[in-house]
């Protein structure tokens, strides 16, 4: 079940379609994101509502992409469950990305 929410103007939506966003799926997304960013996409909203678990390999996908996007880059990570929100807080990556819990689309 995917949640519906408004994508802010100028943003592109990417859905992470993996229940575990870990080393086994991260590499594929890293490559896809590099392609998108090289095509000029800089503002991206990531829908994580299908993701149950993320590890450091998944987190590093966002980190390497925001580095490639440079100063114009802006990522919003939405649909995160409590466990994923905790990982962003523990690594303090919530200071870099706007992280929004599931059900909060504002």
């Amino acid at each position, binding site marked *: 079940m995917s949640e519906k929410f408004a994508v802010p103007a100028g943003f592109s939506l990417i859905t992470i379609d993996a229940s*575990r966003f*870990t080393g086994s799926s991260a590499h594929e997304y890293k490559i896809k994101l590099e392609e998108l960013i090289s095509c000029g996409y800089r503002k991206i909203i990531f829908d994580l509502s299908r993701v149950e678990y993320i590890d450091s390999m998944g987190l590093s996908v966002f*980190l*390497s992409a*925001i*580095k490639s996007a440079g100063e114009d880059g802006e990522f919003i990570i939405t649909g995160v469950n409590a466990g994923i929100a905790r990982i962003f807080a523990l690594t303090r990556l919530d200071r*870099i990305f706007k992280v929004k819990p599931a059900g909060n689309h504002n």
Partner: protein
Amino acid sequence: MNEVCITFQSGGYENTDKAALVLRQFCSENNILSAETDKLEICLVEALNNVYEHSYENSGEGNVEIKLSLLERAIRIEISDNGKARSSLKPAVLEFDPEDIENLPEGGMGLYLIESIMDETRYTSINNRNTLNMIKNI
């Protein structure tokens, strides 16, 4: 069930998902709270990521042994491999300036998470066998 062993003879990151499943089962059978189970899962997955990325350098080869043990008031996770030993035993630090996008870290998060969550971690490398011992009080 107070002890479970998992052995992977080869493979890579997909094994972390399989091992996490066994850990969740082990915790559920031993009535470990789900908040504690989540923390243990982070540490197990990150330790295995490090084995596959650093010890076996993403080769997809290499033996890994995992032992989960229920102690009196703690859970112990022991992970051994025959790969390259860690070059530094310094505590992991994760410091960055969120405004300085160019210099954001992409590695080192796993060890930082493990050391933040676990009550005790010990790493040894003896006779080409590396072992990470992690204990979480419950």
